[in-house]
């Protein structure tokens, strides 16, 4: 009797959250799975069941693989840059002086800006005529000796097939890195003073102390960061859409810009939801792999 009352009590408290989660998270996901089995314009109630055709087409769609590859480049290069910069800056910004507090705010600043503002700002940075990059190149004599191989000196960055993706990655890193600096700064502050002092007494200094003490103790923060980076790089959309729309000639196409094209340009919601599900599975899988690979904590601490 008492047990049943307790169960009812628990259920009554859990129910609102479970129902909300079910209706607003689980149900739409299941519905999306359902849509992916249909040919549907998203403009009427007319749906035709096509089984797994949307997935088969996706699998044979070169654009999808090219987009996925670009997501992978953003993850590998952008992610590495973010981790290296974030850890280095966080390490160099220890202590609670006024300067470090100010700097932390400065580094976080891009992160609190709207992505629209970030994209427009960087369009100016990359502007072929008045942009910062062009100006710097000119300043350091880049235009002094015209390349005899190129009939025209192309200062275009976002319109250049080899420069556009690196340019987008740099913007992505600039935008995202402040958040990870925060994370690692907090992680470093969590390292017990005793450990730091004991290692100093034992003669661990500089890069050696950083490698043997600080880095291993930041493991769990690093792990979370990598998962975040996986999610944010595989789901990147607004920045790319605003800066290049996936161009030139798909050289910056990513999964979600292609999803947008399938849904809103090609009116193929079935294909778009199939892509959304593939994206979901890929994010889950990569996150799972990262979790598995980083399970073993080198500091020996068990969480």
């Amino acid at each position, binding site marked *: 009797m008492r047990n049943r009352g307790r169960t009812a009590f628990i259920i009554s408290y859990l129910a609102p959250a479970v129902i909300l989660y079910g209706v607003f998270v689980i149900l739409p996901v299941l519905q999306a799975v359902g849509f992916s089995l249909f040919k549907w*314009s998203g403009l009427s109630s*007319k749906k035709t069941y096509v089984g797994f055709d949307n997935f088969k087409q996706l699998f044979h769609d070169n654009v999808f693989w090219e987009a996925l590859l670009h997501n992978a480049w953003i993850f590998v290069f952008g992610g590495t840059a973010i981790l290296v910069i974030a850890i280095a800056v966080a390490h160099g910004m220890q202590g609670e002086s006024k300067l470090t507090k100010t700097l932390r705010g400065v580094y976080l600043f891009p992160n609190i800006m709207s992505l629209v503002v970030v994209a427009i700002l960087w369009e100016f940075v990359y502007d*072929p*005529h008045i942009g910062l990059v062009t100006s710097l190149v000119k300043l350091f004599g880049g235009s002094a000796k015209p390349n005899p191989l190129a009939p025209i000196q192309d200062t275009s960055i976002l319109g250049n097939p080899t420069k556009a993706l690196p340019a987008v990655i740099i913007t992505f890193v600039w935008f995202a890195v402040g958040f990870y600096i925060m994370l690692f700064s907090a992680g470093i502050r969590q390292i017990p003073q005793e450990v730091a002092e004991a290692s100093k007494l034992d003669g661990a200094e500089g890069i050696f102390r950083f490698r043997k003490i600080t880095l291993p103790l930041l493991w769990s923060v690093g792990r979370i960061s990598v998962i975040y980076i996986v999610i944010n790089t595989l789901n990147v959309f607004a920045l790319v859409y605003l800066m290049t729309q996936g161009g030139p000639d798909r050289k910056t196409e990513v999964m979600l810009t292609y999803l947008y094209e399938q849904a809103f340009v090609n009116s193929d919601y079935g294909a778009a939801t199939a892509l959304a599900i593939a994206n979901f599975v890929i994010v889950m899988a990569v996150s799972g792999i990262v979790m598995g690979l980083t399970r073993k904590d080198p500091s020996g601490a068990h969480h």
Partner: protein
Amino acid sequence: MKTHVSAIYAAIGALGLLLAGCSGGSGEPTAANAGNGKDLEVVSFQGGFGIEFFQKAAKEYEAKHAGVHITVTGGPRVWEQLRPRFANGTPPSLTWPGWGMDYWALIYDKQVFPLDDALKTPAADGKTVWKDTFDASLLKLGEYQGKQYELPYHYNIMGWWYNPDTFAKHGWKVPKTFKELVDLCPKIKAAGMAPITYQGMYPDYTIKGFLFPWAISVGGIKAADDAQSLVPGAWKSDAFLQAAKMVKQLRDSGFFEDGASGLSHTQSQTDFLAGKAAFIPCGTWLESEMRKTMPPGAKMAFMLPPVVDGGKGDPSAIMIGIEPWIIPTGGSNHDLAIDFYKYMTSLDKAKQFITECGTLTAIKGSDQVTLPPLLVEPARLFRESKTVYSIQFDTWYSTLGTESKNAMAALLNGSNTPEQFVDRLEAAAEKVRQDKSKPVHKMTH
């Protein structure tokens, strides 16, 4: 025409995918939007021309028809709000959903009300048959399988722009032919200007401003009609190959503004207005789009793209584009919607639209007003042209449209040769031909 900043709505639109998923719904009109026969909801794209004109027209119409109540709303990316409404079967009564709407998908899904019967009834003046009040070459762009689904209101003319003061100052002659252009370009460069700039981030401008005019000039209008009708081999015909080679020639000669491939429409248009480049391809919306950022004293004038020397095509050929209005099948009060649109397309309202919004309309005789100065020349060229055409393949076959833009970007930045360029287009056209689910469109002149 692209309101770039408001592209944040794109992100919201992607979320809409999920929202549309939540509300699946049926396509049948519901009691809620059946209305009482006197209510009308009009939703309009809100771009450079605003929606005030339509709101004012609604007030006038209400004053003339007791009991009628019309609401006019709009937005710069209004098609994203309209998509789920169409999916739910609750669209507005009358709408101009804007350039981002997939009109043809709506038509295939029978979401657009055919207007053939309505067009046979008298126009707002009570005398003329409504159909006869429209310019026939513009009206036919809204046809599909012999039925009229889209109605034009205003239209744009696509061409090139130059600064007449600059040309007068240097004693340059506006080039009529490609050879004259190529001869002039070095002189322009010598004067410290780039000969031509373009909207590199949006290659549809160069498809409409370079590729099609030159393909038509080389091979005649049939070359373009065949390509748009997906006739096998048409996209890699000599006409398109020659046109692509002309683009490459300008590129390799260094006649395009440095870095233009990375310029947005506003950046390149700003460069043009600032006198950094002598020519730019753009439609007649250029002035209304740039009005806010135009440097004082900036001058411009319209011209047809230079034609190919000795080409088969009609040198008076002119490219136009309509901005269509539709009456959704699932909307309420079709008769009232038709009657209100008749009012909007009356000669008086159409003339007013030209003077207030600064763009030409599809209503015959509406250009018999004092036109905004920049429209005089395009309107004359349109009137006198023997070959009026429009680019429709990109909206009929969106995958081919996207591939054409991608290939154009590759041609312009030198990563595709003209041969690769036409092969890519033909391959994309072949893919559409193979896709039996795609309705076939034919274009003739």
